[in-house]
């Protein structure tokens, strides 16, 4: 193939040229002729009854075309935003699924709940007019904290109460029996702090109704345009798919927060038809804080039973998960299917039981954020394992090795539903320890002590379930849709190729990675391949990008489509070369008669397929354009080990990450440059969760106290170190590329690694656990309140 880049090369990204020169097309960069601007008026209260809404003055304000409230949408038959996943409680009853109207009518349930939309010639005019709307709010008490939701006497978010479901997984009796014979039990209470995803591009949406054709187009900042079309078309606005096009153009990051169908998408699409003009809405950052689904927010109690040798006998977990005021699209799945099933981690723990109560509070809805359930599981597990190591005096690395799933045990069935296909946790732990110079830590710690700094080292191993999802498994677990993926490979007459994928790239570099897969598969240069995504009018179907699924599921669909193209090409070649089809080999971009030098290039076959003057037209249709659907057989199981080394300044409580090492197993790697970038970004977000980020509400009023970058602590360049990353490869056994997924690993491995390091650094103070984020103030307080042991006693 010569200069054809192959799988495994750090090919520079095809998409970069437009992003580097300001030529990207993000949703807010799009302007439609005659476009108006929408401003969404939001609740200033966490909980209030709406008496009346007087919008007469706003309607008369300069530049205003219309003001709509929830009543207008109800009168038009607009439905509620649907939830895509149904969980059943342990008693068999379905989860509580409250209505979720795009604009509320009678009660607001969180600060930022949308109440009215003002449509005007400019955004400023719409906002000016919004101030003229008089709403008679009767403020009601709110329930805010996760731990308050089920306390009797607290306000109710819904008439049915604050419990959404009470779910469990695992064998409680087996767990109880194992605990009864344990030599040691480690107990831990911990919180997984609520986060805000904060992609740098705030959400935006443009509804564009064409009066002439009756067609609707929605441009939106989405990770999965087809799912938005399905949900909004079928459930909310009752528009058939052939009249509704959803375009997700360049999207400036998502991290989960742009998976869901949001109220504003339905509002602008519906309003565009009402006012017969395109309607654009763009969130500013403050609005994003009040309207983007948030992440995490678990409160858990965990107990780990060990035998005298440090083997894990059983794990018992009780978790309360805060879902906010409404069910976001995938919310119910996160603290259940994507959380409790991961509690085996990398270990052979034979008995596991996890009970999850999901609760409503008067806060912004919570859904998947990078990792989605898996970081919560990993954080809990790797904290309690480290705590067990400290309590039993076994080295944390050694304790993990004693409990790792053996290399020869795959496929490995865990007690919490998953079946791991491959992995080697020993290898990644050793790689990470070596790269981190784990053995040299005591000397570095001593040197730090001499400077008055507290130095600690911490590790975490992780496993994730990615490649979401095998449809049958997802369906059995409550998904209301299968989660396969689609690809179309369209070969053009002169041999260039357009690939249409149902996944969506918003930073992941699919245009490059997928092109590499096709370049290898068809033996053509990457410059001849274009990857298209994000437009329901162009791509047959798709489930979008989340859960590190794109390459494992979408890339596999591409491979299937390539296989079909090659199979057809072989038939055409057989005809042209007057050989038997079975004798045609396809290699290095050539169809060749085996054992001869007679061949046709890929481009020649493509031309023959479209301009068929010598073609088996009786038996074979012309054209070379194949579509494939791929439904994975199983999840994929990326794994790895992360090690953090920190230095804490006891005078201020400031933690500095002095070294961060990641050793990951992502299966086959298509583009190592892109994969490393994904690890860096995930680790940065994981460090953010561990040390900096926290979404804080006033516990009484429900006001969001961290509603801008003035208070929500985003990691900046000078907060972070450079990262040392490496990979070990065990192939996924059930997809054609052998790939596992890499997008979430950093956000999963980093929080427990960092927290284990922080707690390790504070060991002389007798501190055994700290909830995230380990802010300077929190650490200073702890250090001030504890007397250190003499260092010699260490």
């Amino acid at each position, binding site marked *: 193939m010569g200069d054809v880049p192959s799988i495994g090369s750090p090919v*520079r*990204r095809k*998409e*970069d*040229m*437009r*992003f*580097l*020169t*300001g*030529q*990207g*097309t*993000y949703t*807010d*960069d799009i302007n439609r002729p005659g476009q108006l601007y929408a401003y969404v008026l939001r609740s200033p209260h966490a909980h209030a009854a709406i008496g009346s809404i007087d919008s007469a003055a706003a309607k008369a304000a300069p530049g205003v075309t219309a003001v709509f409230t929830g009543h207008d949408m109800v009168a038009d038959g607009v439905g509620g935003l649907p939830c895509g996943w149904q969980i059943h409680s342990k008693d068999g009853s379905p989860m509580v699924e409250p209505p979720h109207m795009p604009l509320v009518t009678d009660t607001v349930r969180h600060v930022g709940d949308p109440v009215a939309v003002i449509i005007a010639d400019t955004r*400023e005019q719409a906002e000016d007019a919004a101030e003229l709307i008089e709403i008679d709010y009767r403020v009601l008490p709110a329930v805010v904290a996760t731990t308050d939701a089920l306390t009797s006497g607290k306000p109710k978010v819904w008439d049915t109460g604050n419990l959404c479901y009470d779910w469990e997984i695992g064998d409680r009796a087996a767990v109880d029996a194992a605990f009864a014979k344990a030599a040691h039990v480690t107990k831990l209470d911990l919180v997984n702090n609520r986060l805000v995803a*904060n*992609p*740098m*591009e*705030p959400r935006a949406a443009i509804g564009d109704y064409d009066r002439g054709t009756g067609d609707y187009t929605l441009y939106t900042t989405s990770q999965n345009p087809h799912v938005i079309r399905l949900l909004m078309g079928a459930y909310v606005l009752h528009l058939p798919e052939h009249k509704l096009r959803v375009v997700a153009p*360049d*999207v*400036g*990051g998502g*991290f989960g927060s742009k998976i869901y169908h949001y109220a504003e998408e339905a509002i602008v699409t519906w309003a565009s038809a009402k006012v017969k003009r395109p309607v654009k809405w763009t969130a*500013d*950052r*403050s609005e994003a804080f009040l309207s983007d689904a948030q992440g995490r927010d678990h409160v858990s109690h965990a107990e780990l039973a060990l035998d005298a040798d440090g083997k894990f006998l059983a794990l018992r977990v009780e978790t309360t998960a805060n879902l906010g005021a409404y069910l976001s699209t995938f919310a119910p799945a996160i603290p259940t299917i994507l959380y409790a099933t991961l509690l085996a981690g990398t270990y052979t723990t034979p008995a596991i039981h996890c009970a999850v109560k999901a609760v409503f509070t008067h806060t912004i809805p919570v859904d998947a954020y990078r990792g989605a359930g898996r970081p919560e599981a990993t954080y809990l597990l790797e904290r309690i394992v480290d705590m067990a190591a400290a309590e039993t005096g076994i080295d944390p690395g050694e304790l993990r090795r004693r409990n790792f799933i053996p290399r020869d045990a795959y496929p490995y069935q865990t007690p919490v539903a998953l079946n791991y296909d491959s992995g080697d946790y020993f290898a990644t732990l050793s790689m990470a320890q070596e790269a981190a110079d784990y053995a040299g830590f005591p000397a570095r710690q001593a040197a730090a002590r001499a400077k008055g700094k507290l130095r600690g080292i911490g590790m975490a191993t992780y496993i994730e379930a990615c490649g979401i999802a095998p449809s049958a498994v997802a369906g059995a677990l409550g998904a209301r849709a299968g989660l396969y993926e689609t690809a179309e490979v369209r070969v053009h007459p002169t041999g260039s190729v357009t690939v249409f994928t149902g996944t969506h790239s*918003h*930073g*992941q*570099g699919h245009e490059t990675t997928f092109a590499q897969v096709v370049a290898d598969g068809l033996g053509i240069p990457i410059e001849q391949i274009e990857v298209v995504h994000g437009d329901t009018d162009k791509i047959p179907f798709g489930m979008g990008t989340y859960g590190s699924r794109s390459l494992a599921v979408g890339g596999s669909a591409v491979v299937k489509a390539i296989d079909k193209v090659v199979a057809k090409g072989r038939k055409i070649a057989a005809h042209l070369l007057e050989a038997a089809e079975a004798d045609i080999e396809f290699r290095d971009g050539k169809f060749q008669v085996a054992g001869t030098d007679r061949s046709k290039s890929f481009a020649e076959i493509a031309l023959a397929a479209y301009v068929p003057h010598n073609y088996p037209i009786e038996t074979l249709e012309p054209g070379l354009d194949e579509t494939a659907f791929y439904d994975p057989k199983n999840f994929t199981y990326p794994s790895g080990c992360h090690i953090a080394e920190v230095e804490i300044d006891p005078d201020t409580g400031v933690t500095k990450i002095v070294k961060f090492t990641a050793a990951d197993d992502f299966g086959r790697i298509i583009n190592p*440059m*892109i994969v*490393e*970038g994904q690890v*860096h*970004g*995930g*680790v*940065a*977000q994981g460090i953010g969760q561990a040390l900096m980020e926290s979404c804080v509400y006033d516990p009484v009023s429900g006001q969001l106290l961290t509603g*801008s*970058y*003035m208070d929500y602590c*985003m*990691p*900046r*360049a*000078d907060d*972070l170190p*450079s*990262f040392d990353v490496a990979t070990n490869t065990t192939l996924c056994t059930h997809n054609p590329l052998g790939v596992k997924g890499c997008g979430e690993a*950093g956000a999963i491995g980093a929080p427990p690694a960092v927290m284990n390091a922080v707690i390790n650094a504070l060991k002389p103070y007798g501190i055994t656990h700290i909830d995230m984020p380990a802010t300077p103030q929190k650490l200073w307080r702890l250090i001030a309140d504890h007397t250190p042991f003499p260092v010699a006693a260490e």
Partner: protein
Amino acid sequence: MATPVSMKVNGKTTSASVEPRTLLVQYLREHLGLTGTHIGCDTSQCGACVVHVDGVSVKSCTMLAVQAEGATITTIEGLANDETLHPMQAAFREHHGLQCGFCTPGMVMSAVDLVRHNPKPSDPEIREWLEGNICRCTGYHNIVKAVKAGAEAMGGSASHG
């Protein structure tokens, strides 16, 4: 209320009549169609909107268009000519210093201003300078590498941008 404003943007004289409350970034994006300059926050912290005003980096979301009367502005679109990339843009591509691309224009404009200030910045100096540019994708690792390489490629020359 509309006030006339005129400024040179990427070498071209531009003018419009704007409300005084129009921000420079709105003027660039909405009046001139230069949508490479982005808006990522409303508290002057993220730096997605950084452009050069009279040769220095400025957050165009925190400056009124009328304040730029008579000024010379360079945006990401004007950093390089035609098909060639500015050495800093090329370094970002080479070192994978961008993912979603949203913070990238501001990041590149800040980086170019850094090199004008400090032709050979160290890693900590780069990290400190980029304090006002938030990236959520890259973890900054590759941005730091890119800026260092970009600075080297610029050869300390202050003539670009």
